[in-house]
């Protein structure tokens, strides 16, 4: 397939009329496809290995056959089993609660700030933008020790206190949401809003009725990025969540990291890979479905500001 497809892909439109591709171009194209193959392998091989292992019987954990052999669903049952002190099912629910709450708060507050930053001129605008960017670079570890002492004083490290993770998560989710939204908003055709205003809409109406539908894809992408960042958070949750089985607020990232096996010092590799697959696959599906939007969301801030 490679060699036949080359002239078309390498040269694109201009070469269709021109002379047949020279040897040099062919070599270049072969190298291109080799590079692309490496990129695909880079991204998928370790992930593939996780899935293969997730379906492998415990006794064959270290078999290195690169395709599905000795398949079983036991690992998924083990992952959800609470017999060994793991609470993976509850942890999944916790991650959803923390992720949704964090995303909702960050979006609700962030959308107003992003609108103002993208759309309006006001004093200290660039200073505020700088503060928000500074906040996005803020090290989470600087929050851990003051919050650990504060939360233990007010009893948030016991009981069902999801806010002990949701509030600190806002510290990175909100700047991320604003940063991405500001970039998206900057590209919208705001003339339409002005036109709506001239036609007699209030600023709020113009935003809701005209701009919001146009902004929906950007809002949605930002929400996904924010949710993924909250879902993946580990450092704060590892210190501020409650692992008491009766008030278990630990999210999946921390639960997976401390997954215990049959014996105290034996790593339950296959069950962990099964748990990892469950945690990752929803994200991968999101990424596959919305890849174009996600890439533009990831890069929008970096390239255009």
């Amino acid at each position: 397939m490679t060699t036949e497809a080359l002239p078309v892909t390498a040269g694109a439109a201009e070469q269709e009329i021109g002379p047949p591709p020279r040897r040099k171009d062919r070599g270049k194209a072969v190298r291109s496809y080799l590079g692309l193959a490496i990129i695909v392998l880079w991204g998928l091989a370790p992930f593939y290995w996780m899935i293969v292992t997730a379906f492998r019987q415990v006794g064959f954990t270290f078999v290195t056959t690169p395709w599905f052999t000795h398949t079983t669903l036991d690992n998924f049952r083990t992952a959800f089993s609470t017999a060994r002190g793991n609470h993976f099912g509850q942890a999944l629910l916790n991650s959803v609660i923390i992720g949704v709450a964090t995303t909702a708060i960050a979006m609700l507050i962030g959308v107003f700030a992003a609108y103002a930053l993208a759309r309006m001129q006001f004093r200290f605008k660039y200073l505020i933008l700088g503060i928000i960017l500074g906040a996005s670079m803020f090290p989470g570890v600087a929050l851990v020790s003051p919050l650990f002492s504060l939360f233990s004083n007010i009893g948030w490290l016991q009981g069902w206190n999801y806010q002990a993770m949701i509030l600190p998560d806002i510290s990175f989710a909100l700047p991320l949401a604003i940063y991405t939204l500001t970039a998206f908003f900057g590209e919208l055709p705001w003339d339409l809003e002005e036109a709506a205003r001239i036609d007699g809409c209030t600023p709020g109406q113009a935003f809701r009725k005209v701009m919001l539908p146009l902004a929906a894809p950007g809002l949605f992408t930002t929400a996904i990025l924010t949710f993924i960042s909250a879902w993946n958070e580990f450092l704060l949750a590892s210190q501020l969540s409650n692992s008491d089985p009766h008030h278990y607020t630990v999210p999946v990232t921390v639960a997976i990291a401390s997954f215990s096996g049959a014996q105290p010092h034996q790593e339950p590799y296959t069950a962990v890979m099964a748990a990892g697959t469950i945690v990752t696959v929803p994200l991968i599906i999101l990424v596959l479905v919305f890849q174009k939007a996600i890439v533009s969301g990831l890069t929008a801030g970096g390239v255009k500001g």
Partner: protein
Amino acid sequence: MAAATVAPAPEKTRKSLRAGEGRRGILLVAPTLVMLAVVILYPLVRAVIQSFQKDEGLNPATGMFVQGGYAGLSNYSHWLLQQCAVAGGGTQPCPEGTLGSQFWGAFGITVFWTVVSVGIEVILGLWFATIMNREFRGRGLVRAAILVPWAIPTAVTAKLWFFIYAYDGVLNHILGFAGIPPQLWTSDTWPARMGVVIADVWKTTPFMALLILAGLQLISKDVYEAAEVDGASRWQVFTQITLPLIKVPLMVAVLFRVLDVMRIFDLPYIMTGGANGTTSLSILVVKQIRQGFNSASALSTIVFIIIALTAFVFVKFLGADVIQRPPGYTKRKWFRRKPPEASQSVEATPEGAEAA
């Protein structure tokens, strides 16, 4: 749609539409600023205050009970000068193995990871981006594949590589084909350190590549054609056209990644627990918390200052222009009361326009 194509509104209408914008803008940003003050500024101030307090409890080094109270700079000298309190007052160099003796080691390995990981990521990211910038079939597949490592939670990445690194695991198996003896990837100092680099590079090169690619796509093809006509070599094209033109997005990506690795925690913490010379600064803070959070606060404040300085250097001197003000906008205008271009937009009009 129709409204937008009509002739532009008279200047006066536009002006009145923008009336009060200064105040509204601040009002819309206010909830964010309040929230950031609650979740970042307050803990930060609290950490600084705590860092000047002594930790109550038994001193692990001396076995003496330590009263709380004002500590002066002793928590900072504890980390920076590696001085530990001794029974009966005074200090001595912290004994080997205590957390206090590990600050510069943790700083060193964190900087090592930062330089090595980000260095490799830039080179690989440039290469990936160059490949993806050409036209090819199956663009969607490649983009999806490269997003996979980015989307996997770091905690899962750590567990996945922990499995790949197992003594009987697949990496040692593959290295065996090349005649390389099996390594203890998570329990031997240098293999463990490089193990963290490999996992980090795997996970974050896609982010780097995508940011660089976005920069590459902004470069007009004409520039390259002109260079080809002038007979520039590929290396010349790369160093004298591509690199300068993607400098800003590249430096922004490098800045984000550098700050990420400076605060690295998840990967080494899960893969090695910080053992065998893999304690990063963040891991050191977390280990210290249970031994006394006032001292941990001093350490986390130090880490914060290191990261803030790094960000400052990048933005100020290395051209990581994260804010990208509109052309012609200079900093001094922050302090001017009436920016020139504001005559028809910002501060200059609110009172007058509202009255009208």
